[in-house]
């Protein structure tokens, strides 16, 4: 479990990283928190010839607010996201999701950008980014571009980032008034990747829920929006939909894939139960 030999380039700016990427192309990989990449290198399932270490870059970290836009720099550590009052106020969904991410040691190093760029289908942050309609800011020597989260995740560990590009930041719209959120997942042990999870949002006015949206994760090759489920749930209000009907709607939205421990049927059942939990939470007064 030792990596293949590689060259390490430490850069101190996004431009430096872009230059290194432009020079080494497909041979190079960005090293952020290393919590996903380094294990893969040790197993030799990833063997980049060049590692571009961005940990010393200035300007890639930090959580800032400009008007209604909250920007999380690529190097924002999970721990920082989890403890940020700005996030708690303006992006409550993220605050709900963070306690489910990894263990403390991992959160001290793992980064927001790394999590999105890695695009693990069972990861929490990509699911949140999709539900919140985040805008992913990507840069290279060719310039900067923005990709909507819905177009960013392309499949298993695959994103819209080109080999010469660097994820710079993710921007989110701050929470709208009356917006409510729920986040539920099931993991066999605390800190494990979820065997399935649900992020949910809605607008609540008095007792009424509107604009319900769900993202499921840990069930396909990427996080997925569940529009049929949302329609079913909206139609059933104020009551909760039946599990069987939920499973049907889910099947219309996504073909659930197994992992090495759980069958699609198991995942569908869990997602259906989590959707009920989420709906319960969305309708409950006093919740975010």
């Amino acid at each position, binding site marked *: *479990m*030792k*990596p*293949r*030999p590689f060259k390490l380039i430490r850069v101190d700016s996004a431009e430096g990283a872009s230059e290194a990427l432009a020079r080494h192309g497909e041979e190079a990989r960005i090293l952020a928190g290393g919590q996903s990449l380094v294990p893969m290198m040790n*197993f*030799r399932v990833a063997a980049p010839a060049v590692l571009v270490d961005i940990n010393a870059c200035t300007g890639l970290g930090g959580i800032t607010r400009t008007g209604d836009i909250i920007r999380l720099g690529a190097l924002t550590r999970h721990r920082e996201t989890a403890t940020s009052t700005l996030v708690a106020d303006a992006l409550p969904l993220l605050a709900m999701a963070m306690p489910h991410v990894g263990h403390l040691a991992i959160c001290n190093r793992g980064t927001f950008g790394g999590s999105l760029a890695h695009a693990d289908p069972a990861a929490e942050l990509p699911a949140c980014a999709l539900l919140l309609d985040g805008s992913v800011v990507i840069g290279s020597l060719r310039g900067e571009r923005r990709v909507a989260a819905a177009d960013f995740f392309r499949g298993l560990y695959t994103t819209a980032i080109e080999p010469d590009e660097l994820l710079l930041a993710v921007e989110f719209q701050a929470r709208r008034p009356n917006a409510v959120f729920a986040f539920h997942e*099931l993991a*066999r*042990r*605390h800190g*494990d*990747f979820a*065997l399935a999870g649900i992020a949910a949002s809605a607008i609540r006015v008095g007792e009424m829920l509107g604009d319900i949206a769900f993202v499921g994760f840990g069930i396909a090759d990427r996080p997925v929006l569940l529009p049929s489920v949302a329609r079913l749930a909206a139609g059933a209000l104020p009551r909760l939909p039946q599990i069987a009907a939920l499973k049907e709607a889910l099947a219309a939205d996504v073909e659930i894939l197994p992992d*090495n*421990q*759980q*069958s699609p*049927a*198991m995942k*569908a*059942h*869990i997602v259906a*139960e989590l959707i009920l939990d989420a709906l319960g939470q969305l309708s409950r007064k006093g919740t975010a």
Partner: protein
Amino acid sequence: MTKNIGSARPRDDVRLLLDGRGTYLDDVPVTGALHVAFLRSPHAHADIAKIATAAAAALPGVVRVVTASDLAAICHGWGSSQTFPGLVERRQTALAATRAVYQGQPVAAVAAETRAIAEDGVEAIEVDWRPLPEMAALDHALEPGAAPAHGDLASNLAYSGTIGANIDPAIWKEAAHVLEESFIFHRVTGVPLETRGVVASYLPADGSLTVYQSHTAPHQLRSLYAMHLGLDEGRIHVVTPQVGGSFGVKIHLYPDEIATCAIARLIGRPVKFIADRLESFTADIHAREQRVRARVALGADGRFLAWQVDCLLGMGAFSTHPGSSVQEGDETVRLAATPYRVDAFAGRVDVAFQNKTIVGQYRGVGHPMASAVTEYMVDRSAEALGVLPEELRRRNYVPDDAYPTTSASGLPLDALSHRKCLDEILRLMDMPALRLAQAAFRAKGVYRGIGLSAFIERTATNVPVNAHVRKATAQDGVTLHIDPSGSVRAAITVTEQGQGTHTAIAQVIADALGVPFERVTVISGDSAATPYGSGIRASRGAPVGGELALKAGRALRRNVLAAAATLLQVAPDDLTLDNGTILRRGGGRGVRLDELAEAVHFRPQLFQHGAQPNLSVAMHFGHDWPTLVPTNGIQASYLEVDARTGMVRLLHHWAVDDFGTLINPLLAAEQVRGGIAQGIGQALYEELLYSEDGQLTNATLADYLLPKASDLPDITVGHVETPWPHSELGAKGAGEAGTTGALGAVLTAVNDALRPLGAKITEMPMTPERILRALGKI
């Protein structure tokens, strides 16, 4: 008299280890050691048409690439030990020559300047694999037409044996109730925190081999390496430094370890192999892959008229070395139903070859399944009769005063205490209150379960019938010396893997000799420092090592008193030794042990002419007790099943054990707690997942789910002490009881929780998915 035996002392090496100053295998300094990495078979079953090593050998830093043909002259290979007559045997070599029969089997090795370079070398080796049909799934292994795990096998049946006597068929017809159930136990492994490893150095100059190995039995290794490598045993020195857990994984000898020593011999330079976690998962012994069928005939009065227990064990591609893989299945059947009076018992063990990793002896060896199957059937029996589970247990236990006796499966048993243990656990649990709470939760739609699991363990193996073949369990030995400072050094054959053997042995010696605990230092794990003898296996440290220490301590005490008597010019019987001071019984000046030792070592003139006082003892002990040392205990689990998700939340766990004389209640309780964690792992979390074609798919600690501290409940540990009547110390084995009882306790508790929902589950681990299937939700 100072009492150390019975006192709850923490391990004396805890501070050292917490300071990070322990010397584990990787900390052993060896100058100029090369690192060895293995190319392991990626296939479960495949012919090796050709191995091309030139590219690997050409890499800078690679010193040697080794294949089976390089080792053939040094190391011939080995068969299985015939501890179970009739076991079909297939020869193994350290590196597979022409065919690999399980994924992870070592095929070639690279010795290089660093481990990373050695791994580069492994990647550069090209093997022309010709995959063969593989036999992985145990359920199909014995079907006609199943692919054979070895090309020349007519059937995958490696062993078949019967236990007990035939049951009169009329019993099944006449019984008030006949209950039948099948159980599935999936493969698990031991996962010691420190992985296996070997540092070997061969000196061509004098033909000596020095081996440092993370193992439990240095002398056994010496004998085995002499056998495998054709070396003079007298020139082999084995050291097992600090060992970070074994759980049975490190009582075996593995092909990669033999290969490492053979490579040291081949190239004449020190070499080091440390298994990484991936290799540990694929190449450490696996365990527990069993299918068990149980059938119970029950009288209307609740009497057990007959038990039939049949076990099919998947053993992997070979029988483990030394010892035998059959043992696990044999113990499962032999120990089934043993706590109870049973009129008739019949059992059968079938063992199947598979193209999978070898199955060996993991903590508890068969006993957890014996207990889980038995206790599940007892609960079902209680249900059929409409009595409380604890009530049926109490009624049917072999009474505590009925020992010695022989179980219906033919095991001699002695000094057990099922009723006392049951009473104690019910008291600790406050069972009536717990049942009320359970009922209140059920009324609210919350499904909580209470489960009990009693068991008998067989501990402290000693000098079995083909011990000479297995080199496994020999007579034990100890030497005791008193230094001029009065400190006592004990060099003993039972070893330390983190369970506190040294502390317990020191407690016994301190009392037997009459010195403060702090004056005793225990050394083990070095074949040059201790006499020949077995190491640790089968919970033998306290009952066998402790008994030996007691006898030796008393012998040394006699020497000390004789020396003091000469010095003080009195009769030895007039002297006592306590807390390091020798006193005259009638009063008057005595002498401190350090003063006496100083005199013995440096001032012989103080003693009368001709006296040669001797402050040392060497003693050996191979127990001739009528049986292995049986122990018993009972565990209870209280848990909640989430009927929506199938998740199990453990609320509390209790254990009451009879380890005979307790040398150290704290260490015994720690053994119980750690063992329970592993039993809970098997019950709810751990499973080595294989694909149909024999590929292990979860060989990482992220995917193989060990319970973490936060997944475990609080554990209350209680004790009952029925001393082992055949020894002076009275101690019994304590190392495996936790693992043994926990599986059944969680199994019966989950089923208790599911009962009102009309569901049952008998496949372990009881994952959320399996529980949801049992509930018919998916």
